[in-house]
């Protein structure tokens, strides 16, 4: 593969090589074709782009800083480590970049009702936020287990006026929330737009979400050239569905000297049903609209997954990541729950930043790799979200108590 062809994907059928496509029930085919048509028109439309830029700047708080993490850099004794501070965005994670883009699109299409799935709740909060801002009705599907472990975000969504529907099916996490959102969409397709939160699902979602998230990489590239007068050597991001990672990676795909590392959730180790590292234990499959790497059993049933972070706890990975991996353009590793929790604490103590448990997986990877890298190297880690939502869960895992208890 040449670098140029990698950047031109997907093709007209939404395919990244053998990955991607559009595997959905017939009821959704016409709405998806309509969405594709409208999205590509909006992309060419200066007014739409100006409106998007306006809200990204004035409402979401872009650009976000590219921050040199000096103490972390010193502690690890290797490359200069920069953090792309998506955690500083309104609502606390990169998810709002996509939510704002899609809601502008929904308004263009005359939709009056918004639905979304959410795992950690960050995408749900971002969607509830933009729905409130534009006065649209909003329903968020969230696995019952996730509702419990990310309770803070459930309250936030409710305060923003969204209805949060806990999903009781299966293992009651992100995958089941997506199933339920798709069922809702099939039923209310004429009035409703589904703001899918990651670079996954049927075409045009993977390409559309990537393009709404590429602002992360576009900014980071400009910022690092300003600060260091050269490109970074390595990019690191966590990968659930893969939207923050593809957002950071995509603008650098043509820069062959820049290596890319996606970090999946290793959970309790690579044992079936105890992790969510699709590139470790997964195989080619078709799930929820697209063809990609999927954790499945010998009969093709989707396997249970586990991760301390609800946002990475998902059985499949975005199709463009599968393609970048095949092409040798990006590498994928994993961090376990314990490594992520260590990284969570380390970043808080060294940098005064409490990361989301999802983003802590990316921090764990830099902690692992930096000591073996030369000091004149530059690494950018995507700090995709902040950890407020995880504080109760992490305190419990770390055995913290309030004074007097």
């Amino acid at each position, binding site marked *: 593969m040449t670098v140029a062809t990698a950047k031109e994907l997907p093709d007209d*059928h939404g395919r990244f090589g053998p990955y991607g*496509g*559009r*595997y*959905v*029930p*017939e*009821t*959704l*085919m*016409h*709405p998806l074709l309509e969405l594709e048509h409208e999205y590509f028109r909006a992309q060419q439309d200066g007014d739409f782009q100006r409106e998007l830029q306006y809200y990204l700047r004035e409402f979401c708080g872009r650009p976000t800083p590219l921050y040199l993490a000096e103490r972390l850099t010193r502690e690890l004794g290797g490359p200069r480590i920069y953090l792309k501070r998506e955690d500083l965005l309104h609502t606390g994670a990169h998810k709002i970049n996509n939510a704002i883009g899609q809601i502008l699109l929904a308004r263009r299409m005359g939709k009056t009702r918004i639905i979304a799935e959410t795992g950690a709740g960050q995408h749900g909060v971002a969607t509830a936020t933009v729905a409130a801002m534009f006065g649209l009705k909003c329903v968020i599907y969230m696995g019952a287990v996730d509702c419990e472990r990310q309770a803070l975000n459930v309250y936030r969504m409710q305060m923003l006026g969204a209805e949060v529907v806990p999903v009781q*099916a*299966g293992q009651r996490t992100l*995958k*089941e929330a*997506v*199933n339920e959102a*798709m*069922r809702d969409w*099939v*039923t*209310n*397709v*004429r009035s409703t737009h589904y703001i899918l939160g990651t670079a996954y699902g049927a075409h045009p979602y993977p390409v559309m979400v990537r393009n709404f998230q590429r602002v992360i990489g576009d900014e980071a590239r400009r910022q690092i050239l300003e600060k260091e007068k050269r490109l970074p050597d390595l990019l690191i991001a966590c990968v659930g569905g893969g939207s923050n990672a593809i957002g950071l990676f995509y603008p650098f795909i043509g820069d062959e000297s820049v290596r890319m590392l996606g970090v999946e959730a290793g959970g309790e180790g690579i044992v079936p049903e105890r992790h969510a590292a699709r590139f470790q234990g997964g*195989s*080619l*499959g*078709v*799930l*929820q*609209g697209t*063809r990609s790497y*999927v954790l*499945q059993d010998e*009969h*093709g*049933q*989707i396997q249970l997954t586990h991760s301390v972070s609800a946002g990475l706890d998902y059985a499949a990975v975005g199709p463009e990541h599968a393609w970048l991996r095949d092409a040798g353009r990006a590498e994928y590793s994993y961090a376990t729950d314990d490594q992520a929790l260590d990284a969570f604490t380390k970043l808080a103590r060294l940098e005064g930043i409490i990361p989301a448990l999802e983003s802590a997986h990316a921090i764990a990877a830099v902690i692992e790799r930096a000591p073996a890298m030369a000091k004149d190297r530059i690494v950018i880690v995507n700090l995709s979200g902040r950890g407020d939502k995880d504080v109760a869960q992490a305190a419990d895992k770390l055995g913290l108590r309030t004074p007097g208890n």
Partner: protein
Amino acid sequence: MNRIVERFARLRERGEKGLVVYIGAGDPNLEATRRLALAFDDARVDVLELGVPFSDPLADGLVNQLAAQRGLESGTTPTGVLDTVAAIRRDCAIPIVLYIYYNLIHHHGPERFIADAARAGVDGLLVLDLPPEEAAEYNTRMETAGLCPIYLIAPTTPEDRIEAIARNARGFIYYVSREGVTGMQSRVADTIGTMTGLIRRHSDLPIAVGFGISNPDQAREVARHAEAVVVGSAVVNEIASHGRDDKLVQHVAGLVQGLATAIKQPL
């Protein structure tokens, strides 16, 4: 000749409407599925639609989701379903369509799955999440194996897609009478006649209408617009409430007989 094609030809000759019945395979177990199939054949069911249980049935309503869950809990695998079809074939020739999510076929290997299905005595596949745009190879393999690819048309399907789907479909066209997942409704959609009329402009295939039809009156009403009526969740519900009962087959066959009588008596 393919058993589905043959059956609809016979129905047409007799001026009779067809009854398609959906059940989840392996609910409550595969032996019950086999016995139900034989009872349905006696009850004048024209096509048996067997749902292959999948962990993530995103096009299905709660009733069929629970059936899939019971199927998985009874240890039902795609291969087990094919073995059961082969066992049914020893005793009867009821046309059988597998209602299936694409990952199960994809994982088995599409070429091998289609060949295995044909060998077991399956007559058609209805793949919920495989639109014609993704199905070029699949259609060719189905043709070679002599199986009918059954396609859905939805109320949201515009005319140019109806035309494309009609080109790919064999056996019959399944019109989903409303937007939504599978499940019972208190009334049937009033747009059925318009849509079946539109489909007929592009296809001579028989049309079966389904999604939301649960009682003999609704079935009879829908039969006015179509060659066949599909009943699913109502039958699955009956199985759910008699799953552990010795008289399961008797109960379910009774319900199905009522539906068959309603749609097969002259309108």
